[in-house]
């Protein structure tokens, strides 16, 4: 496996730390005028999402992580795994519950997701920033109340629960921001 020296460090570089693939979030060069130089980095563990700090002596090298982001189409869930397909090669990969994590509540069949592969296997999923999902359950809508504030909980077809405006009804399609988990608007298919 390839190595990176500290002078190659930059945001987004994928390196191995403690046996897990990580991505450099921030890299700072630290050096006293007369003394040892260091690279002080913040790295995100790509499996857990946790950000930690690390310091390396300048000139040290670190194992590279074979990590790749690919845009794949979500196909279906078979109860154990979530299946994705490359739309050009038609190759499929299966992501387990750890890799999919909380993002499963935004996965709608046919949507294109970013699947992060480590040594060819999915370790995390990023759904599209905006998804359109059907409201499966909520209190009855209040007609003509489109201008008023106020909200109520709604459960979507994927099981996601979020706050929606009072006028939203069961069966409506709504657009959601998956990064914040917030309602954006009603949508047409």
């Amino acid at each position, binding site marked *: 496996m390839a190595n990176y020296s500290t002078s190659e460090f930059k945001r987004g570089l994928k390196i191995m730390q403690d046996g897990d693939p990580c991505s450099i979030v921030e890299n*700072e*060069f630290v*050096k006293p005028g*007369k*003394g*040892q130089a*260091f690279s002080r980095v913040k790295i995100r563990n790509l499996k857990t999402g946790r950000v930690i*700090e690390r310091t390396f*002596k*300048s000139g040290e090298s670190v194992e590279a992580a074979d990590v790749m982001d690919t845009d794949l189409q979500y196909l279906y869930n078979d109860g154990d795994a979530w299946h994705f397909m490359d739309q050009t090669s038609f190759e499929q990969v299966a992501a387990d519950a750890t890799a999919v994590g909380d993002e499963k509540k935004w996965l709608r069949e046919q949507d294109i997701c970013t699947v992060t592969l480590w040594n060819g296997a999915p370790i995390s999923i990023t759904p599209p920033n905006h998804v359109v999902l059907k409201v499966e359950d909520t209190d009855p809508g209040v007609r003509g109340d489109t201008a008023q504030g106020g909200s109520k909980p709604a459960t979507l077809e994927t099981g996601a629960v979020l706050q929606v405006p009072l006028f939203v009804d069961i069966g409506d399609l709504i657009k959601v921001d998956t990064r914040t988990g917030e309602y954006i608007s009603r949508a047409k298919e």
Partner: protein
Amino acid sequence: MNEQWRPAASLQLLKKRAHLLARIRAFFAAREVLEVETPVLSAAAITDSHLSSFTSHYQGPGAAQGKMLYLHTSPEFPMKRLLAAGAGAIYQVCRVFRQGEVGRLHNPEFTMLEWYRPGFDHYVLMDEVAALMRELLPQALLSDDIERLTYAEAFQRFAHIDPHVATVAEFHACADAHGLPTVAGLGDDIDGWRDLLLTHVVEPQLKGLVFIYDYPASQAALAKIREGTEVTPAVAERFELYCNGVELANGFHELLDADEQRARFLAENEQRKSAGLVEVPVDELLLAAMAKGLPPCAGVALGIDRLVMVATNSKAISEVMAFPLDRA
């Protein structure tokens, strides 16, 4: 349209920078310190294993086969030759060059103010640095007295460790306690551990202007070493000035002994060799000048870009330079 042609610093900031340089020159003119210029290109280089010089090549009359030249990392060596020649108090403002240094506080070329005071020791020179800061920095950054901490006091106060006597295991435990659990490659390099704690633990806690002085003897560079006693360690008569944790200046009560200077150069070249770095030519002209006799003196180098940074509350050195490396 490529926007990289534009200066990184605002024109307003560049005016402040020019104004600051004018005040520096006025400060030294009033004190009858002579402005000098020395070569940027030199046949010899600094041996310090933590400094890397850019190299260049001269070819032409006098050197048909070509001659390796090093860009200076500081004008220290030729300025000391001027002192040995009887120049008296001197200062210089010049660009200096350091290979491999880029970051929020680093650009591989930067502007240095360096000055030497025959008859001063490092305590008296700290007074003059403080006087210059009062001339240049906004009131908000100044207090009546600039705090002075020995290197040992700074470590004891902010890292709770005695930096002169701690073992590698104790430095390791101290780093661990401050959330620096693993630092690859430091091994049993005591000065490396000191630098780690200095930069990661001590510096971030330094508020306002602070002098740190009396460094470990192993970090003397070109400073005099004051022998220890049964209860005190030997220390280098060296100081640094910090502003809100940013290192601004490094000064020495200068080493005068040519033989000891040669021994340090050779030892540093040995360190370079064992660290896998190229050895560099020792400055024989400096050593000859020291053998002839350097007047007892103290000298200090101050980073102008960082001074402008702290004076203008800028976050990065690139914000105070017209064209930092990525636009050079």
